[in-house]
């Protein structure tokens, strides 16, 4: 029962990414390719003979998705998540889960695109260490990756602020601020649910990126309206104990 609906929600999640949007159409032939049989004669190729492997991943790099269709799809996702939920927290958890697999994917896509552009610009130089970006090993490079490249990939601009918790009790908490999150632009939250922030979906994406990099984290979205920015949202990243421990070890080892 939940399964086909899950697929449709997955499709709409990939629509959220403006730059990756046209991939929805190119991903459709996949079930035909991944037939259980390994043999080539049983392989069914789409009529234009183009599988997802024949298409270039940078093709949709600068393509943008219509904001109206995104707003519609995201509204549907929220409505879908709202079914059978027990409360606001449960709804936010569901939105978070919708974003999580997207974060894992975007991470790989982000690095792939950085490699392919840097290698094409420096095609003649054979140095291997100069061009490819490094995987984040410490928390700070990871946060910069989210704050800069990831935000640009999703929303075409960097996030507005990056802060570390000042409280000595919670050194594992970091905050990323977005003054006007795109996902909340066309969402009106009823008064009785004013705790709800649908950017929990974006929090899920961030969580997927952190987890993918090996930084176990819990990410939540919180409303922090100001006079100027009524829909200002703070994403609170809480890293797990294992991450903080490793951070100390790496700091001693001098890894940046």
């Amino acid at each position, binding site marked *: 029962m939940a399964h086909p609906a899950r697929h449709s929600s997955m499709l709409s999640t990939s629509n959220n990414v403006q730059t990756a949007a046209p991939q929805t159409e190119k991903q459709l032939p996949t079930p035909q390719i991944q037939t259980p049989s390994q043999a080539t004669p049983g392989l069914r190729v789409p009529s234009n003979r183009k599988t*997802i492997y024949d298409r270039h*991943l940078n093709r949709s790099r600068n393509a943008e998705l219509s904001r109206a269709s995104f707003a519609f799809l995201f509204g549907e996702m929220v409505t879908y998540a709202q079914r059978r939920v027990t409360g606001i927290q449960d709804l936010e958890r569901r939105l978070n889960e919708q974003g999580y697999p997207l974060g894992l994917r975007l991470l*790989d896509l982000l690095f792939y695109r950085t490699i392919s552009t840097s290698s094409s610009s420096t095609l003649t130089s054979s140095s*291997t260490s100069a061009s490819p970006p490094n*995987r984040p090993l410490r928390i700070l490079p990871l946060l910069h990756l989210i704050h800069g490249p990831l935000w640009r990939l999703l929303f075409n601009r960097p996030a507005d602020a990056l802060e570390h918790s000042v409280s000595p009790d919670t050194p594992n908490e970091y905050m990323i601020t977005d003054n006007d999150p795109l996902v909340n632009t066309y969402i009106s939250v009823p008064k009785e649910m004013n705790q709800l922030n649908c950017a929990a979906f974006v929090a899920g994406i961030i969580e997927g990126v952190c987890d993918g990099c*090996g930084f176990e984290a819990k990410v939540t979205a919180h409303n922090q309206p100001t006079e100027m920015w009524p829909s200002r949202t703070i994403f609170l990243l809480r890293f797990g104990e294992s991450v903080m421990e490793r951070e100390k070890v790496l700091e001693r*080892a001098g890894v940046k």
Partner: protein
Amino acid sequence: MSYYFTILSPTDAPLFNIAFGTSKSGGDGIARFRFPEASQNTYMTQFIINSSLDMLEEAQWMNGNMYLKHIDTYPPAAAYISAFLTPSGTRFVLLHQPPQPNIPASATTSGAAGSMSMSLSASTSSSSTGGGLFGGSGSSGRTSSSSIAANPTAPQTEEAVRQFMSEVYEGYVKTVMSPFYRRGMEIKSPVFRGKVSAAGRKWL
């Protein structure tokens, strides 16, 4: 040169396996592994690859590059392990075994391995492996010194493996971007398999 390439998920589940031989310098692209016992050929590669995961996890946090280069060696079988790590923690591990062991094997074991390779090369009429076996280690080292197979830790080899890994990474990202693929699923697409073996032919 024989290769065994594996993709392992962050939780060590194998997602993809392929064995192939070199296509450079007259190779026919068929893997011929030499292990002390011929019966070990099917599983020793996987065993060696999985045993190198500890080294990989150590290197993972010391080196931020995606391509971790040559990380481990298994001297008894003269097997070399190179690794590539995607940002999302998936490991690409390539085992490569040069055509002739760098350490002299005992007479009985090399005889067993030799007879197996001979029967294989006779059927495909490939000369590179068979010639090396008949000529002994000295001549094989001379004939293949220009190919990447001769020296598994040379910069040219590292570069060739890096190119191979980058090409596989492209295919991997395309697989992952499919909405029907979930993390930890086996990669069954024959198109992907074809891409990987094409990359192997091209670079290794």
